[in-house]
């Protein structure tokens, strides 16, 4: 489990349940590394401002994280973290590597509105 203040997803079934029960979900799948930490930090900062979005992290090295690692949208990714945005259970955007707050906000606004 990652040492962040975000809610954690620990299994594929939990992820599937979350995306089926929530319209807008952002999941950051990474490690406690320098490219991942800033993204968790951005998410923690945005949680209060985007009440229409549920924010989660998932440990990249967990076997259960295959549910994200093996997504077709992530097939060309070669940089942590993998960040996936779900709307009504479907992937609407996925990014690889570090993202700034502005980049994350742009995606949240574009895909989920605010």
């Amino acid at each position, binding site marked *: 489990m990652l040492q962040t203040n975000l809610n954690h997803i620990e299994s594929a079934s939990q992820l599937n349940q979350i995306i089926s029960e929530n319209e807008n979900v952002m999941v950051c799948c990474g*490690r*406690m*590394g*320098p*490219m*991942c*930490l*800033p993204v968790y*930090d*951005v998410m*923690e*900062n945005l949680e209060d401002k985007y009440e229409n979005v549920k924010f989660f992290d998932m440990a990249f090295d967990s076997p259960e994280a295959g549910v994200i690692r093996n997504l077709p949208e992530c097939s*060309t*990714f*070669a*940089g*942590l973290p993998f960040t996936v945005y779900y709307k009504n259970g479907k992937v609407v955007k996925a*990014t*690889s*590597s*570090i993202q*700034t*707050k*502005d980049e994350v906000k742009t995606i949240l606004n574009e895909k989920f509105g605010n």
Partner: protein
Amino acid sequence: MEKFDAIILGGGPAGLTAGIYLARAKQSVLIVDQGSVGGQIILTHKVANYPGVPETSGYQLAGNMKKQAKEFGCKIVSSSKVTKMDLISDQKTIEVDGEDVYTSDSVIIASGGEPRSLGLESEKRLKGKGVSYCATCDGDFFQDQDIVVVGGGNSALEEAVSLTAYARSVTIVHEFDHFQAYASAVKEASEHPKINFILESNVVDFKGKESLESVIVKNLKDGSEQELAVTGAFIFIGYVPRSEAFKGILDINDRGEIIVDRDMKTGVKGVFAAGDVISKRYRQITTAVSDGTIAALSVLEYKNKK
């Protein structure tokens, strides 16, 4: 509008140290960082030369500094951008994320530096799809693949060696005919059977639709270009001071560094600067901590004299 005794822009070792000193002196302190608190040291896998700490990770050391600053009462706002500021007036104002406005009569700029990029459009497009800035994070995506490392300093050579644990071959592309690294790092990289060198050359383009497929390397002596089939490119070409926002307000040299005196004072009353953003020769965690200490003590002196 919230008022503080001191506002610190930047939450790396310099900013956090200044915060610790000021908060401990019963000053109300706001630390604003545009990224994660900790600064560049969170990128450092191992810190073994910080006095009193036998060996730790940069992330751990930064975490301890942040905890200490918070325990002394610093308010820390991370992942937030300064959108407007007035540093000239006696009462300085800082607007954050276009929303929150803070004031203080003293500001310490400890905004540090950021990794230098090649500035290519293709580099941006393929970030995380072959182009990387962190060997520790992304090295294992390149198992048995051919990769390049761009740069010729300690980071480039040390990370090139660490990447040989995964990659089939590592080609170091460097713009000069010599390295800006410790002799031991040069020796280790030079003697490694998996490492090749292309010197006096620059990467001028990254090719690939969905992910990196090759890089174009230009020879800086004769202008010739060659295409290297690689799936990974790690860029370690140093850091640039994060001082853009202060141009026209503070004295900044041609390297983008803020000019301060020995007390960390800038040319503007009530504005101090510390850490990697200032003009200085050595950039270490310990020197940043020292700068932060001096800046904090100078702020206290400035306030006492007012």
